[in-house]
């Protein structure tokens, strides 16, 4: 089971990284990642639009962001189970943060999760693309609020 502890972006990422590292092999890790994906909140069907697809993923990943009380709330889904689990992990780290918290977060989240070597270099898994898209949403939503 992957950590569900709360805290700062850094703390949550490190806790998830530690729980992944404690698993014996990649089959177990992918299993745990897929379990996390199953816990993701159901994706609102009205957001299943091509313009919400993240570019750079072999599978389709939808990511929707909206500002709720000054914090960004994400909804996501994917047609591939492991990638759905990855986006669920990323959301667990980034959910309901302020744009500033997201923009100030460290850029080495894939490394902290222990997934950099196996996944983020591989363009197809899209972990890097997901994090980039989240930062873009943070920029866009913070501009919208400040204007």
């Amino acid at each position, binding site marked *: 089971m992957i950590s569900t502890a709360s805290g700062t972006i850094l703390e949550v990422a490190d806790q998830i990284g530690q729980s992944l590292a404690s698993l014996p092999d*990649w*089959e177990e890790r*992918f299993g745990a990642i897929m379990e996390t994906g199953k816990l993701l909140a159901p994706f609102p069907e009205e957001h299943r639009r091509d313009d919400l697809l993240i570019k750079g993923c*072999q599978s389709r990943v939808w990511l929707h962001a909206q500002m709720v009380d000054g914090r960004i709330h994400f909804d996501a889904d994917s*047609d*591939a*189970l*492991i*990638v759905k689990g990855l986006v669920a992990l990323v959301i667990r780290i980034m959910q309901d943060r302020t744009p500033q918290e997201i923009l100030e977060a460290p850029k080495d989240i894939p490394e902290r999760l222990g997934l950099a070597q196996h996944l983020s270099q591989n363009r*197809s898994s899209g972990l890097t693309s997901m994090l980039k898209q989240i930062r873009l949403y943070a920029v866009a939503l913070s501009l919208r609020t400040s204007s």
Partner: protein
Amino acid sequence: MRSEFPILSRRVHGGKPLVYLDNAATTQKPSVVIDAISEFYRHHNANVHRAGHVLGAEVTSMFEDARRVVAESIGATAEEIIFTRGTTESLNLLASTLSARFTGGNARRNVVITEMEHHANIVPWQMLRERTGAELRVIPVLDDGSLDMARAEELIDESTGVVSVVHVSNTLGTTNEVARLAELARRVGAVSIVDAAQSVSSAEVDVAAIGCDALVFSGHKVYGPMGIGVAFIRRELLDTLPPYQGGGSMITSVSFEKTTYAEGPLRFEAGTPNIEGAIGLGTALAWRNALDMRAVVAHKQDLTDRLVGGLQRRDGVNVHGRHQGHSGIVSFSLGGVHPQDLGLLLDAHGVAVRTGHHCTMPLTQRYSSNGSIRVSAAVYSSVDEVEMFFSALDRACAVLR
């Protein structure tokens, strides 16, 4: 044979033996090839065709020897072998230098390709279409993964300028009737081109037997180095083609008023070539030529049959096409399972396969909208590896379904 390939003894993901079944993407290299490249830089390095010194003479002779080995390997002469960066550059070279056939008085009006072409044999012709207005005609693929040859006969007509077809499909493993297609092209005076990227590694490829005007392949898919490839162009055709890129080596004299171009393959080899690549490729083909090709074909037929048979016995597996022959290439999809998930779980077991669209999007989407899983065996692949693939596949399916 496996001991000749150092990488095959690697272990990955904390001690799992590497099961490399992505040979259609690139093959591994035997020690003789790795040593030839290392030897080149340790003892010979110099530029070709220019230097008057001992190293330059040695390297020029090694480079031209490599050209001869390439020629002999496919039944051509050395004057018909152009070194390129790979299949992709070879096809771009042909599409570029054949442009003139589609403009002017006696212009041909279409290029015929097939639905199973790699993007490298689609996009250069689309670029030619943009330059010249030529039409792109596509021979369809039947559900069994073979070409619709009746349709091919209709599509290749008096207005066809080029027929460019893949020998062995990198996605379906189908071996196409390239000799028949070259014959159809010849009848109407069109140039025939064969993309042999997937066939040279494990089949007799003879340009005379095929009867094609041009044939292209990459070094890295025939146990040779990356970044080197071949365009065979029949001498009578080669002599009529304009240069591709300008620069050094491809000229006989240059003044600011007029430049005269070199004859033969050098006209298409502007700039310092990939010398160690050519030498490595020559070594790789010499290694391949020393194999008992009948035994190679029998071994790859056995591996292919085991892959196809094992997949067909499993529930929910859809093997794409029915004509894998001895190509070692088998693509499939699995009901309810995303190829990417399966690829990542197989990798967790040390099994390397390819997932996605395999640079043949029009073809892959026809069989499965989110891509496919491709398993591809080489001459050094083993029955054990096929078994390990299936056991990893079964474990992955248990997790995913």
